[in-house]
C-alpha cells in the first residue's frame, strides 16, 4: 500500500529477568496509514508501552527484539528501523517518528529553559538558524494554546502539568514528523486540561497531517480521538478495527470486558462489571488462548488452541474462537441501556 507510513510485521520483544524470558510483545503486526490515529488499549503490563518504545528503538537494556520488522515509509523511501545505525536512528527519531512521554514532569530537563531545549533539539537535527527555530516554536506554542513569549523563556517548574504536556506535544512535532507516538498523554491530568490536550491534538493533526499512535488504558480517549482501535492482551493484538465497529460490535471478549468496565455520564447508571482474574504470567504463558481463564465464553477448545488474529469483518480482526459472542452480548447490553434511558427522568 502506498499511503502506509509505518508497518510492523511479526514483532517479538522479550525482557530477560531472573525467572526467565518475559515475552512482552508477541507476534504484533499492523500498518499505520498516513494521517491515521490508532489507539492501543489494554491493562497495565499488556505490552503496549513496550510496543511503543520498540517503534523508536528506546527499549531498556534488558529488552531485546527477537523477531519481526518495523518499516517506515517517507517520500518513497523505506527505512528499516530495526537495522538503523546510530546516525540513522538519530535522524529517524523526532524527524520521522516522535515520541511524547507519559510523565510530563520528568520528560523536560528541569535546569534548562524551554528555549534551550527547543534550540538544542532543532540544532541536533541540522537546523542552525536560531531565529527560524524560535519562530517555529512560538508558532507551535500558539497552536497548543500557550502564551508563546512566556513559555518560551520559562523553566519547566514555572509551568503547570497541563502546560508542560502541551510543551512536550509542541516539541514533539517541532521537526514535522510523520508519526507521533503518545504514551498515556492525558493520564494524571484534570478533566478540563485533558480536554484542552484533546482539542490541541485534533487541531495539530488536521493542520500537519501526521499519524498518531496513542497508548492508553482510557477507552474514552480512544472513543474521542481514534480512527482505529487496537486491543492488546498479554503482549498480543487480540482485536483491531475501525473505532466505531470495535465499540459497538466488539469481536473479542477482552475488549467487551473493558467496555463493560468503563463508566460514562449519559443515561441510566450502567451496571458495570470488572474482568475477573488477573493477566497471565508472561514468562510461562498458558497454552491456548491467553484470555481463556478469565473469559465468560470460554469452551474446551480455547484452552487447547490459540486462536490466530483473523479478519472477520471489513478491516475488523479478532483473535477469538467465538468472535460472535461478544457482538451479541454488546448488542443486548446496548439495548438494555436504551430501554433504561427512556425510564430515566433527568429532573427527578
Amino acid at each position, binding site marked *: 500500500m502506498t499511503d502506509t507510513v509505518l508497518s510492523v510485521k511479526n514483532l517479538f520483544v522479550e525482557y530477560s529477568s531472573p525467572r526467565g524470558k518475559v515475552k512482552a510483545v508477541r507476534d504484533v503486526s499492523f500498518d499505520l496509514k498516513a494521517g491515521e490515529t490508532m489507539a492501543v488499549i489494554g491493562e497495565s503490563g499488556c505490552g503496549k508501552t513496550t510496543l511503543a518504545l520498540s517503534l523508536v528503538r528506546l527499549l531498556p537494556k534488558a529488552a531485546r527484539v527477537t523477531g519481526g520488522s518495523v518499516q517506515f515509509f517517507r517520500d518513497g523511501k523505506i527505512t528499516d528501523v530495526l537495522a538503523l545505525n546510530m546516525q540513522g536512528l538519530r535522524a529517524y527519531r523526532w524527524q520521522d517518528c516522535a515520541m511524547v512521554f507519559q510523565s510530563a514532569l520528568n520528560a523536560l530537563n528541569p535546569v534548562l529553559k524551554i528555549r534551550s531545549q527547543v534550540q538544542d533539539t532543532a540544532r541536533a537535527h541540522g537546523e542552525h538558524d536560531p531565529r527560524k527555530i524560535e519562530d517555529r516554536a512560538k508558532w507551535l506554542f500558539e497552536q497548543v494554546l500557550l502564551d508563546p513569549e512566556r513559555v518560551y523563556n520559562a523553566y519547566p517548574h514555572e509551568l503547570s502539568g497541563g502546560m508542560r504536556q502541551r510543551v512536550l506535544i509542541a516539541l514533539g512535532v517541532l521537526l514535522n514528523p510523520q508519526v507521533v507516538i503518545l504514551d498515556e498523554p492525558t493520564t494524571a491530568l484534570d478533566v478540563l486540561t485533558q*480536554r484542552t490536550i484533546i482539542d490541541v491534538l485534533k487541531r495539530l493533526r488536521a493542520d500537519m497531517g501526521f499519524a498518531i499512535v496513542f497508548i492508553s488504558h482510557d477507552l474514552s480517549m480512544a*472513543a474521542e480521538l481514534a480512527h482505529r482501535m487496537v486491543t492488546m492482551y498479554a503482549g498480543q493484538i487480540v482485536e483491531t478495527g475501525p473505532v*466505531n465497529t470495535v465499540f459497538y460490535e466488539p469481536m473479542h471478549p477482552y475488549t467487551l470486558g473493558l467496555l463493560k468496565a*468503563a463508566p460514562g455520564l449519559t443515561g441510566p447508571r450502567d451496571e458495570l462489571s*470488572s474482568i475477573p482474574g488477573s493477566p497471565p504470567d508472561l514468562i510461562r504463558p498458558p497454552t491456548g488462548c491467553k484470555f481463556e481463564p478469565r473469559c465468560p465464553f470460554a469452551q474446551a477448545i480455547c484452552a487447547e488452541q490459540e486462536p490466530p488474529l483473523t479478519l472477520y469483518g471489513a478491516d475488523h480482526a479478532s483473535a477469538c474462537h467465538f468472535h460472535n459472542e461478544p457482538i451479541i452480548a454488546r448488542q443486548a447490553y446496548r439495548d438494555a441501556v436504551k430501554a433504561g434511558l427512556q425510564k430515566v427522568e433527568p429532573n*427527578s
Partner: protein
Amino acid sequence: MNAQPILEMQHVNKVFKARRSTVQVLFDVSLSVAPNKTLCVVGESGCGKTTTGKILAGLAKPTDGTILFEGRDVSKFTGDDFTTYRKAVQIVHQDPYASLNPVHTLYRTLSFPLFRHKLVRNRDEARTRVLELLKIVDLSPAADFIDKFPHQLSGGQRQRVSIARALTVNPRVIVADEAVSMVDVSIRISLLNTLTELQKHLGVTFVFITHDLAVARYFAWEGEIAVMYLGRVIEQGPAPTVTTSPQHPYTRTLISSLPEPDPEITRGKERLELRSHDIPSLSHIPSGCAFHPRCPAQFYVPGVCDRHSPELASTEVSSVAACHVAAMTSKHDEAIREKAV
C-alpha cells in the same frame, strides 16, 4: 435530609501559612453526610478536596468552623470521645505504593490497630480477624496473602489492603481520597463494587473524593455529589441530578468536556468553551465569583459575576448551586410559573 448527619462540616475555612504569604484553600465549606450514605467530593487538583477529606477525618484542623460527629463538636472531644471519633472515621489514601509500610507483612499491618485498640486478646484471635478482613476485601485465598509483603502485590491488591486496614477498627465512616485513581479501569470497577458491598453489609458511610465525575456518578448514584472549585462548594445535589442536569456553568463545562466511552456520544456532545484555559492560582483568587474569568461566554454577566460572590442557592432541580445566573434562571422560572397559576 431527614436523618441526622453522621459527619458534618459547618462554615469551614482553612488557611495555610507559608513563610511570608498565606494561602486560603477552603472558603466557608459546609458539607454533611447521612449515615450509610455516600458523599462524593469532585473537583480538579487544587480545589481543596483533599484538605476537605483530611479535615473530615480529623487529620487536619480547620482555621474556622466546626466539625460535627453525630451532632457533637469534634474540637471539644477529650479522652474516650476522641478515641471513639478517631476510630469511627478512617481514611484510605490515594497511593497504595506509599501508604503501606514496605517492611511489614499484611498480618503486621492489619493486626497492629487490632492490638492497639484492644480489639483482640491474642495472636490467634488477631490472625483469625485479619483473615476475615482479607476475605471481606476479596483478597482470597486469604491464607495465601496474610504473610505477604506489599511489594508482592499489584496496585489494586494493595489498595484492597488499605481498605482492609481502614476496616480493622470497625469504622462508621471511610474517607477515600482518590482511592481508585491509580489503578486500571477494570480493577477500578471491582474496587468500587467491593466498596458498595461494604456499604450494604457493614453499613459504612463513604466520603469519596475523586476528580473523575464518571466514577463519582457510578459510585454515588444513590448519594450526593458536591462539586468544588477553588476552595468552595459550587454545586451539590443527588448524583443523578448533578450529572444529568448540572446547573453551575463549571459543572456544565466539566460534563461537556469529559470524553465518554462511546464514540458517537462523545463526538456528538454539545461543547462549552471556557474563556480561559488557565486555572487561577490560589494566592490570587479572582474577585466576585471565582469562576468568572473562565466562565463560558453564554453564562458570564460582566458587572455582576466579577463583583459579587454568589451564595449556594436552590435551583430549578433538586440541587443547590453557587451561581448568579443559575439563581436568576431559577427565579425567572418561578415567576413564570406563578403567573401561569
